[in-house]
């Protein structure tokens, strides 16, 4: 049984071949948005993705979110953007249709942070992502 602690859960890609034939290291945020139906809110989405971190406590995110991770969070303040920049996250994914303000979107654009959203839970998004990365 796959268990994820929603406060702190991290999945990291192994770099193996995916069913679609594209290597994990070549999967970009934009690719994932297209494949999983995520809404690309802003940003180029061109960073490659190797894993995922779920968490809302910013210090924990900074300590544990890896470079090239998709960070799934319910935080929508400007501080979320600052942490995404410092942690070098590939993108921030807001689950459950969470709304983000225009001001924060502008701030994300200014800081070159890719924001995406989805209608599912963080757990479902992480499981789908893990599937796309060939990890499960």
């Amino acid at each position, binding site marked *: 049984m796959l268990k994820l602690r929603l406060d702190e859960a991290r999945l990291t890609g192994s770099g193996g071949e995916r069913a679609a034939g594209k290597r994990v290291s070549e999967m970009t945020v934009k690719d994932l948005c297209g494949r999983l139906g995520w809404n690309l809110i802003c940003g180029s989405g061109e960073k490659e993705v190797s894993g995922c971190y779920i968490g809302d406590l*910013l210090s*924990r995110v900074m300590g544990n979110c890896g470079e090239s991770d998709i960070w799934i969070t319910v935080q929508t303040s400007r501080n979320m953007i600052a942490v995404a920049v410092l942690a070098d996250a590939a993108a921030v994914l807001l689950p459950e249709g969470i709304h983000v303000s225009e001001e924060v979107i502008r701030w994300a654009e200014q800081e070159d942070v890719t924001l995406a959203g989805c209608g599912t839970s963080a757990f479902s998004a992480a499981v789908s992502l893990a599937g796309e990365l060939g990890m499960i």
Partner: protein
Amino acid sequence: MAEVIRHTWQVLADDYSTAGEASASLKKVLKQLGFAADIIRRVSIAMYEGEINMVIHANGGTASAEISEDRITITLADSGPGIPDVGLAMKEGYSTASDRARSLGFGAGMGLPNIKRCSDDLKIETEVGVGTTLTITILA
């Protein structure tokens, strides 16, 4: 890079919206100077945690960085309430952050532990009622 480069930023009390600007600015400088990604990440995280600590606990303060070829030294100085028990403050999960700070995702009790983890050397000088100065050294 022969000379030492110095930058200083003012960190404002209770201003969560601009917290992180000093860290982001320092990160850009280090990128331009060509430091390794891991060094930049450690410096950025230590600096941001320090900034946030000053915003939450210390009525703001001054953040400065000295960048040389072989090390980055960050000094975070405030005139806040000081830390009564440094050992407790260093313990992961211990936090005295306000409800407002917690509602914004802070107050995980990981600030000083994260700074220590990112540092090669961390010096904490603090006096209750006088203030706190952190000196963080990260070797390049």
